[in-house]
């Protein structure tokens, strides 16, 4: 099962050497070298790979060549025993995930945006932290928030993300640790314009 003689230095012939999960011909390979891809594919079928969907898997393989993952592959073909971490560790990660997912039945809070015709509701439990939440809000309301600094709040845009805490005060998001925020937040409001600037500004 040689890989085409000693011409390694000349052409890498990556196609022949690449281990792909998809069917031959589903990726952009041109000269599929002899029986190799088929043989490998045949072997793939016998292996303990758990392919959720072969087309998606081959898409993943070609996507793997891209530098940026802008959208996540919806289902990654899971290979038995990969990545190589002990079951004990894997199980503890999964229990933690499950726990955070089911721990509270959702911390739903209203989100209002100045100038928007209606409010939205989001589940704070879904988000892992401030950047995660802010990105989601940016997507939801189609705006950009500035960069957070302890000193100046959110610079660089006319918006400021705020929340009403248990005492009824309007606070700028990001000052307190995430978990503390989650437990004290009653509702969110994205302020805009001069009101927003007033909140974070030192002036």
């Amino acid at each position: 099962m040689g890989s085409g003689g000693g011409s390694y230095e000349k052409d890498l012939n990556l196609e022949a050497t690449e281990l792909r999960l998809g069917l031959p011909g589903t990726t952009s390979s041109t000269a599929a070298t002899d029986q190799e891809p088929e043989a490998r594919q045949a072997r793939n079928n016998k292996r303990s790979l758990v392919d959720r969907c072969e087309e998606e898997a081959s898409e993943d393989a070609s996507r793997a060549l891209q530098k940026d993952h802008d959208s996540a592959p919806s289902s990654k073909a899971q290979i038995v025993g990969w990545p190589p971490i002990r079951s004990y560790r894997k199980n503890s990660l999964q229990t933690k995930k499950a726990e955070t997912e089911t721990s509270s039945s959702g911390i739903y809070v209203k989100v209002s945006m100045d100038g928007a015709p209606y409010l939205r509701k989001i589940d704070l439990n879904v988000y892992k932290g401030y950047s995660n939440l802010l990105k989601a809000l940016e997507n939801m309301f189609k705006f950009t928030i500035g960069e957070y600094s302890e000193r100046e709040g959110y610079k660089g845009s006319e918006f400021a993300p705020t929340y009403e805490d248990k005492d009824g005060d309007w606070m700028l998001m990001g000052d307190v640790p995430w978990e503390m925020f989650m437990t004290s937040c009653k509702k969110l409001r994205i302020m805009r314009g001069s009101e927003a600037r007033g909140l974070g500004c030192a002036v």
Partner: protein
Amino acid sequence: MNYFPDEVMEHVFDFVTSNLDRNAISLVCKSWYRIERFSRRRVFIGNCYAISPERLIARFPGVKSLTLKGKPHFADFNLVPHDWGGFVYPWIEALARSRVNLEELRLKRMLVTDDGLELISRSFVNFKSLVLVSCEGFTTDGLAAIAANCRFLRELDLQENEVDDHRGQWLNCFPESCTSLVSLNFACLKGDINSAALERLVARSPNLKSLRLSRAVPLDTLQKILVRAPQLVDLGVGSFSHDPDSETYNKLLTTIEKCKSMRSLSGFLEVAAYCLPAIHPICSSLTSLNLSYAPGIPGSELTKLIRRCRKLQRLWILDCIGDKGLGVVASSCRELQELRVFPSDPYGVGNAAVTEEGLVAISRGCPKLNSLLYFCQQMTNAALKIVAQNCPNFIRFRLCTLDPVKPDSSTNQPLDEGFGAIVQSCKGLRRLSLSGLLTDQVFNYIGMFAEQLEMLSIAFAGNSDKGMLYVLNGCKKIRKLEIRDSPFGNIALLRDVGKYETMRSLWMSSCDVTLGGCKTLAKKMPRLNVEIINEIDEMEACNDDGQKVEKMYLYRTLVGPRKDAPNYVWTL
């Protein structure tokens, strides 16, 4: 040859502690062999099926400490069925029967039963130390027996075992007279713990240096324990989540400040990030920090902590620290020798993960780095070359790209050159794990340069038998070779069959070796056990020699085929 009486030789040999050296001593002459064997106290058996308990006892009747390893390494990743083997009971039974004065038993990847634990506790009066790593098959009942009967117990260390927790009161089983504990690690237990019993136990253990708690131990119990044991050197925190405005938390702050001997911290199995500042006072003297089981601590909190740990030598962390966080590690932890970065989201999208940038930063800041385990989203040859240049002292280098065949993310080339640079630069490299897109060329480099390599893990790599042959021909010191999903077949397997007697074991799964090839090998080498694991078609494949073998595990042995193999494991 002997000018001195035996006792003198024995005294001299006492200074030789390394087993390798002792083995060498025993080869000098018959009398040295005899003296050495009666004075050997520690025995290490890397494969429990390479030798039998009877032969161990016959040769080393004075053994006090035994280390045994069972399942092959890939069992850690679910590639080996649970009941494949590695039963420790026969060993305990044989040792008990021969009245060996066993004091210490260290097991890895073995099947341990409650009966076995009970037998230990009743048979060995001076039993002092039990260390179980990645074992399974026992429950807290077995632990209760150990606690109750081992009067001089110093160490009970349970690392990452699957233990059935019967929620019994095993901690209560330590008698009031037990005051000898030095090390207690039950972090892997899942059930409830009797806090009062734990506190009393700690209170009467003045020699306690290492304590690792399970998740069920809450912060207030931790505080009470630390009051009793400010001398602790190694602490594994269970639950670390509390209202920071409470009295308990404030008490904890004062208590921790008194723990001046603390050098190693781990656990945080349940943690609220805003409680972490409580450990800031001890950070500056920490040499070891393991936060790899601490869920959901944001990178920013991690770095706040790590910035203070300037003496850190060992760091185990989750990849949510990010490349930037690793940059902080690099600038704060100049003494770092061992780094492990685990994936926090193994099957996920990978927006958490670290890349080659983090590793390069570490290599720049931590020149003493000698041991690495790095799970990353992507890697480049250029980065590996820089790492090789900055850190020539690697003994262990294990890289895992989350996509097993991912090429160099900037050039789309295989990672051959990068790993080649590592083996060429790190002349002391003993353990290597590869991943990413790799051709036969990387094995050529390994064969050429990795002269000290003892263990090599290969997955989804190579193009042809040449790859495996490069390794078998070139790596003179290789002891453990494990390969999965790579196109190596009979030609490579059979080229130099004598090689396998110089190695501990070879694992090949989802490769191209056939049943016929394995049979040929087994026939030529009677002192190897060639085991085929075939869970799917048990009867069928037996006849077709051309059939590719799903899983093969071969190892040298002095005692022939084992008799405890389940019916889906055939020894050829």
